């Protein structure tokens, strides 16, 4: 079963962390990625740039309009995700709990099953 483990980050929470805490999060993700690769459960992981760098595209009367900034003004944004192929939902939840973000107030780790996929997976 494929799941996306999405990491919802709060830029203000991240900024308040000490450099040591930030480094520990990075190392935690590194270890997490290694163990996922070894177990044969990782399909891909991607991290996204800061939401301030986002652009929202709308098309009205056939004309695209581009607005800088995120779609929703919110405190939390999608910061990145892990796409995993695991035994069941319980295992996806077990993995989510190993992500360093899950232990930090104000950061959210969300598990959702994949419903449809297509495209090259070996990229």
């Amino acid at each position: 079963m494929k799941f996306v483990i999405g990491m919802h980050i709060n830029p203000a929470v991240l900024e308040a962390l000490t450099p040591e805490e930030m480094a520990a999060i990075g190392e935690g993700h590194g270890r997490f990625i290694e163990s996922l690769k070894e177990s044969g459960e990782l399909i891909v992981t991607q991290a996204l740039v800061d939401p301030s760098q986002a652009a929202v595209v709308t098309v009205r009367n056939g004309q695209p309009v581009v607005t800088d900034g995120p779609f929703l003004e919110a405190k939390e944004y999608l910061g990145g995700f892990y796409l995993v192929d695991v035994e069941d939902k319980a295992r996806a939840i077990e993995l989510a709990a190993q992500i360093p973000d899950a232990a930090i107030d104000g950061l959210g780790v969300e598990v959702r099953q994949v419903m449809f996929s297509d495209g090259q997976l070996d990229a």
Partner: protein
Amino acid sequence: MTELGVEDLLREIAPQVLGALVRRHGQFEDCEDAVQEAVLAAAQQWPAEGVPGSPRGWLVTVASRRLIDQVRSDHARREREAAVAVAEAAPEDVPDADDTLVLLFLCCHPALTAASQTALTLRAVGGLTTAEIARAFLVPEATMAARISRAKQRVKAAGGEFGAPGEAERAERLRVVLQVLYLIFNEGYTASAGGELHRADLAREAIRLARMVHAQLPEDTEVTGLLALMLLTHARRDARTTAAGDLMPLAEQDRSRWDRALIDEGMRLAKDSLAGLELGPYQLQAAIAATHSDAASAGETDWQQVHALYLILERIAPNPMVTLNRAVALAETAGPRAGLELLSTLDSDARMTGHHRLLSVRAHLLENAGDPAGAYEHYRRAARATASLAEQRYLESRASRARPRTAP
């Protein structure tokens, strides 16, 4: 020989070659890698250069050489080199013994997760390449390679041995083997959009493996039952979806599109399996599938018999899904209200809370009971709960069909 012919041949003899190698050298993990390399080499060379006189002998020789190369290049395992090298001399004597079952028992080792048992079985017994298995499960090859290698380490660490398990353990291990084969089959049968073609191949592969086990254990009624169940289910594959890829429920399928030959074989096997003294879940599920296959139209289905079979299944293998299916059969014989009453016994089951199958069956029975508002609501909830896109489309269409007309 064509590429396809070579592939079929390789899949058939790969487990025999692996069995021969493991018998000679031990070290299942290393032998399995070596056979995979030999199979890949054969898949490249044979279509162009022709199949050698003794394909098995060729594969055993090539795999043995790869194994020795591996061991030689591995300094940490240098001490094992001597043992392997001694055996290098006589690569031609392939034993006639069929090691399929022994390999299956090893690949379906209880220390492994179902996903790992499946992957290892397809590679070591099915003779599929890692790339093929990865494509079938829609994951990158690196992911599948890691999973297989981890599975082999686990088997080794758990002390998995190449040899038939003892009498006491045997029944339980065979149960796991059948479960893994059924899992592979269902993975192929519940094909979603995307790699539909490859997944249909998985169903065929599961049937091929079940045939191999059946050939080894023709007297085992559960093995016969599983093979019958697969054939009867697979016979409906073309009728199961519309040209547009939408799901077609059993009651509405065009039965002339069912594969007659598969049904005849499945019916015969289902009957054979019931002749035994013991009654297991696969035999019963095959008997249920056979009852459906026996009906010329959905209206002619012998629902009394289907209900009776689910009742027995519920007793020997209690499971909320079985109760759910029995409720459908009960509704056909005793009316939708009786079915709904039985469904309500599942409401307290945590495994069924918010399950799309419970919601959709309830929707269906409410519809038949003349409650379109209730049916609409439950179809919509079921559509939101499912993880299958095809099923979601189907449930949405049922919801709009059930939607009560509102006053203008």
